């Protein structure tokens, strides 16, 4: 609570001092991030500063720098999303989506188990499913991971989401999924079989979430009935 009160006081002071306070406040949070790059209150304050006082010009670079230092820093990924959607200098999510997909996939390829870029990638589509469904870079990325046969739970989960949006996978993807199954039950048939396959593979490979994958599977059959 103490941190909250201080932060609020800083806001009050900064508001009084006007736009010149922007660079000083941004520098203040930067110093905090040197010690604790994920400090929740400091990130909240930084976002407030940008929106109230400006200073957006270097923010995307700053995110890139933090991610250089620690690509697992989810706060930096979150800030990146904030910048690409809100910065008056960048044109918004639609304009930025293409380059950001590349950025996220590059991060995924570097560390398959890093959940941050996977969620970021999903966040980029922002319910505009057409672009998401037709983006072959996303499909290839998933395929690459499946073929590596390790750390593939996010790839499978992403494919499961895509299948839920009526994604039609090519044969290569279908084969890659089938090859991860342990039981020999022949070719994957329809897409709902494929989705069910994914759920069973995940229930096996990701036992912590076995109930969740079973539940996803049951949702598939309910959706099919409707």
């Amino acid at each position, binding site marked *: 609570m103490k941190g909250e009160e201080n932060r609020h006081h800083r806001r009050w002071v900064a508001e009084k001092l006007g736009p010149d306070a922007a660079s000083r406040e941004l520098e203040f949070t930067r110093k905090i991030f040197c010690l604790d790059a994920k400090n929740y209150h400091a990130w909240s304050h930084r976002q407030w500063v940008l929106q109230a006082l400006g200073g957006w010009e270097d923010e995307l670079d700053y995110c890139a720098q933090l991610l250089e230092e620690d690509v*697992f*820093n989810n706060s930096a990924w979150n800030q990146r999303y904030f910048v690409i959607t809100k910065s008056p200098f960048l044109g918004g999510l639609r304009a930025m989506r293409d380059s950001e997909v590349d950025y996220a996939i590059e991060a995924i390829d570097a560390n398959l188990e890093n959940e941050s870029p996977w*969620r970021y990638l999903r*966040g980029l589509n922002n319910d505009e499913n057409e672009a998401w469904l037709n983006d072959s870079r996303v499909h290839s990325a998933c395929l690459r991971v499946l073929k590596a046969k390790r750390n593939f739970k996010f790839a499978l989960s992403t494919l499961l989401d895509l299948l839920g949006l009526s994604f039609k996978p090519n044969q290569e993807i279908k084969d890659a999924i089938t090859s991860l199954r342990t039981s020999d039950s022949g070719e994957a048939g329809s897409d709902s079989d494929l989705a069910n396959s994914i759920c069973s593979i995940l229930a096996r490979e990701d036992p*912590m979430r076995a*109930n969740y994958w079973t539940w996803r599977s049951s949702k598939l059959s309910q959706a099919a009935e409707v």
Partner: protein
Amino acid sequence: MPIGIAASFRFAGPRKEKKKKKLGGARMEPPPPPPPPPLGTTVTQRDQWTVEQEVGRIYSFFAQLPPAAQSFALEVQRDNHIEYLTRGLRGLAPSFGSLDASRPWICYWIIHSLALLGEPIDAELEESIIDFLSRCQDPSGGYGGGPGQLPHLATTYAAVNSLITLGGSRSLSSINRDKVHNFLRQMKQPSGGFRMHDGGEIDVRACYTAISVASTLNILDDELAEKVGDFILSCQTYEGGIAGEPGSEAHGGYTFCGLATMILINEVDRLDLSRLIDWVVFRQGVECGFQGRVNKLVDGCYSFWQGGACALLQKLHPFGLSEGGEDESTDSIDSSLYAASNVSEQEEQENNLESASPQVDGTCQFKQGGPQSASCSENTGNASYNFHERCAEGGSLFNSSALQQYILLCSQLPEGGFRDKPGKFRDFYHTCYCLSGLTVCQYSRSKHADSPPLPWDVVGPYSNLLEPIHPLHNVVLSKYQEANEFFAG
């Protein structure tokens, strides 16, 4: 025994070679020093590695204990917790230094923990707490951190929950409801959210504390609820979880607060529940406990924030299939849907028993039969009162036995109290939320919020069973019900 998870924990090393036993039994060798983290790793990876080593050591050690010792290790150390908590409560009288502004919180953490353990508080102590909290009440409404301090939503929540947990007419009638109502209205913002205190921040936690208090005191009206949903919706992030403010990172504490609030104001369907569920279930990591955010470290307190969010989500029906929770009367339930849901739930229960619960012996499959849906209470308007009576369909979304294992083996201190993680010190906050998380786990597959769990839903001896809570307010259910009656009408 949930050894399945412990043994599969990837840092559980191979069993040590058997040393020659001296007379008098096996000696415990000190564990070898952990290997250094691999080169070229980031801060996140190194910190995570360190925690995994610590936790892995605990689980490996546990795995090779004889059964009697394992049983003991999994026991809730009631007496020691009660002693730790009671001493803390008595020690509240003198100031706690930097926590001086948070005495109502400490009250709540301790009183709630004792209530979960089923331990009554002696009458004299109870009286002095009621007295103290009364003096924290501001003349114009709300509770501050201490006598004479400005009122604050968080301390109001803590004070009200404490008084409800103490129960009895003296405690409950000490709450000046009209004044609390005034205070809430003052904190309400045109945008829909609430400020924590006069001139304070607007965030999801403020919304939750306000709405939760309004609900328990039966003063939740349209004015207070107006546009709260809009604000919380704007706090659901691209990741699926909920942040404190729009733009901030998805976070377990705020996710619980946001979700609970939306349920209380009957607007939960506005959230993207699929994405929310997907985010929250992935917060349970290899250590078996929950983390607060993606790529952050496990922490015992998230057993409640994240585990509790899962428990709430289980009671909802994201696809809008009417399975007994939403309609005013059972007559309006489509009987074909009812039959379908009955069957799939039975299958799901069986699947869950086989695949998810390591403790279950194949010979004691639990058969669900009969019209469970029909026996659920319907939601007749008071979102809070009947919510806890909704049936959780199909077992727990999260891994309940794994979480219990983390709480009991990694967070619990045998000498009393609970901590964030190994290497941290115990405190009342973590004691409160680890115990709250534990009860959430124990009742996570119960048909009703207070129906006794089955033996295999409770990790450790069945005597570990805690009191059930109201999952939206985190107060012991029987106390909530007493208060609900008291404040009705």
